[in-house]
């Protein structure tokens, strides 16, 4: 009894902390420095990318090395919306996400024919195709790439309002708006992941991960489930990519479809933090960002340290930092399990008729 009580109170304490944390994060552009806003923007966007990849690799067993395709498509379509079609960049972000999702459908059609390592290489090749096609898009500079026109973010939806509200420069207001979007995206992604994984679909996904044959025999269609996750994650990744490139302000095929920046580092984040858990990517994103802050000015040394860290985690802490923490403390922050209902009475519950 007492243990269940302490568990319950730990949970409500956790919720309280989370609420305070979220409120604090919402307030950052008002009370914090711009540097902080930008740091958190980086962390949050990395986190969203990581959560998406974690959904794919950690839960759906889809080890994709082609996430840069979605980032790049999101970014390019956002630029096209802004530059070619005169839309608001934020509308462009949405369109970019949708475009990435649409692209993921034929990509899934191809890549789902491949398994394991083949799948990884297949997605990588498709992403490279996307890069090469983007570098033929002459209206957006072809291989040269292009920049967001001067002043774009100044007039972006919400920026003038925030500028007046907080009495800051346009640039700071644009930072704030993109930051809030990134925060909203990260929270939405976390919530959706959590809800999804605890839903019927998520349960099915975990069953597939555990035992494919048995999963099929209890009526789960693994391909459909995986395709659903793949396209949804493409949407999330595309949105994030577009948002990131509002901040980067310049798009080139190499940068927008960079396998290192948008996939390899994201894999690092997830694996270091702990794959197949929800808090893992959060932890990973924080560690990654801290490392970057500390060491990025040392160029090669930073990258060597990062590479060694990745290797070390694989050798000594397969389940990542979050795995270490849960092993030591037995504490799980966002448990994905379904507790059985307490047996209320011994009388048999009426079973609904099959339809």
């Amino acid at each position, binding site marked *: 009894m007492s243990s269940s009580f302490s568990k319950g109170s730990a949970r409500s304490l956790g919720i309280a902390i989370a609420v305070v944390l979220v409120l604090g994060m919402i307030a950052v552009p008002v009370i914090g*420095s*711009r*540097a902080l*806003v*930008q740091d958190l923007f*980086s962390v949050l966007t990395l986190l969203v990318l990581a959560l998406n990849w974690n959904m794919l690799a950690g839960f759906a067993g889809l080890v994709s090395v082609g996430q840069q395709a979605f980032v790049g498509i999101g970014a390019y379509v956002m630029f096209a919306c*802004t*530059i*070619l079609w005169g839309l608001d960049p934020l509308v462009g972000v949405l369109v970019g996400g949708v475009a990435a999702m649409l692209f993921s459908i034929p990509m899934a059609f191809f890549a789902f024919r491949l398994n394991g390592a083949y799948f990884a290489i297949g997605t990588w090749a498709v992403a490279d195709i996307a890069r*090469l096609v983007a*570098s*033929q898009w*002459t*209206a957006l*500079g*072809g*291989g*040269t*790439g*292009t*920049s*967001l*026109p*001067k*002043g*774009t*973010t*100044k007039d972006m939806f919400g920026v003038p309002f925030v500028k007046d509200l907080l009495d800051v*420069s*346009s*640039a700071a207001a*644009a930072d704030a708006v993109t930051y809030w979007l990134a925060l909203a995206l990260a929270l939405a992604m976390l919530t959706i992941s959590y809800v999804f994984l605890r839903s019927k679909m998520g349960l099915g996904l975990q069953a597939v991960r555990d035992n494919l044959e048995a999963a099929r025999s209890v009526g789960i269609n693994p391909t459909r489930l995986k395709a659903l996750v793949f396209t949804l994650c493409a949407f999330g990744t595309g949105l994030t990519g577009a948002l990131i490139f509002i*901040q*980067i*302000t*310049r798009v*080139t095929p*190499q*940068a927008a479809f*960079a396998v290192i*920046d948008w996939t390899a580092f994201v894999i690092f984040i997830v694996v270091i933090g702990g794959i197949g858990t929800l808090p893992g990517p959060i932890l990973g994103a924080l560690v990654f960002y801290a490392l970057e802050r500390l060491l*990025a*000015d040392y*160029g*090669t040394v930073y*990258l060597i340290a990062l590479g060694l860290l990745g290797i070390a985690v694989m050798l000594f802490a397969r389940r990542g930092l979050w795995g270490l923490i849960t092993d030591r403390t037995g504490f799980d922050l966002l448990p994905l399990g379904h507790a059985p209902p307490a047996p209320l009475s011994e009388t048999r519950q009426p079973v609904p008729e099959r339809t």
Partner: protein
Amino acid sequence: GNAKIRIGYVSPQSGPLSAFSEADNFMVAQFLEVAKAQGLDVEVIVKDSQSNPNRAAEVARELITRDQVNLILVASTPETTNPVCTIAEAEEIPVISSVAPWQPWFIGQQGNPSDPGSWQPFDYVYHFFWGLEDNIGAFLRMWDSVQTNRKVGALWPNDGDGNAWASEVGMPPAAAAAGFELTDAGRYQNLTDDFSAQINAFKRAECEIMTGIPIPPDFTTFWTQAMQQGFNPKVVSIAKALLFPESVVALGDLGHNLSCELYWSPAFPYKSSLTGDSSADLAGKFQEAAKRQWTQPVGFTHALFEVAADALKRAEDPTDGDALAEAIAATRLDTVVGNIGWGKENVPEFARRNVAKTPLVGGQWRRKEDGSFDLVIVENGNAPEIPLGGTLELLA
């Protein structure tokens, strides 16, 4: 002003483009020393773009919001200069930029590069370097100086430089006007392993002249394949790939008599406004400090600090962005790479405000007995004050 002035410096210090940044440490140290002696209270915060445009954008933001710099200096290739300038312009922080031809720098930052009507000047970012027209002019004059069939094969990749050269602000109209017939096989991706298609096209068109702006590995691939497949042009003038002596040495025999653009060398008759050193002195000091041969970007890394020091001294309040930008715009300075001043007639109207040009001449690599190479100035139509070292020789 009295407050300490903070300068951010961004360049590709690691990654594939790091050869451009060899002089950074030396120049920063030298600048700090001289600035102190001249009573400038400055601090330089050096950031590495890792040759990655995404990272360049990130460090630009960092410099502006975290380090709160008053001025940014940025160098070497559009991959680094453009993201930094775009962000600084939005953040209203003055930038002095260099070592990227001005077209990819200026046009590349426009939202719609293909629509000149939409191009806008900048208020805070200022760039000095030469333009494609200078490089093209030098090449055309070199080709004019020898006897050929005036048929030119062009090797232009699908990247910022290649697209600029191939565009209507690039070589095609200039070559046509000068009476050269151009064969452009089409844009290719960098790090291509086979150039047979291009070589076939050039052979079919009987090109005796070859030009292009490939990256070094691609030029080597192309050039050895061309030799193997019997394409033997009389003149080969290549931009970018032959910039660094290592790339030419790597070619061995095949590097002899290749020609290229030359925008700074110890032979340039200019002096530093900061230290008073001649070009030759500067190259010597660099070679002593860094234990390696001088390269063309060395002069420009130095010149960036010259311009910065000059503008800071002239600005009413160097910590005020607008005042500093105004001071930069008003620059008229003789530097180690030549006279730098914005708003001059030698730049087209639309970019005049933000672009200042420095001289560029034509050079030819000559292999010496011991296997090392000399870069000989063979064309100086653009800047007659730079002495010639010889005349263009045909390839064997």
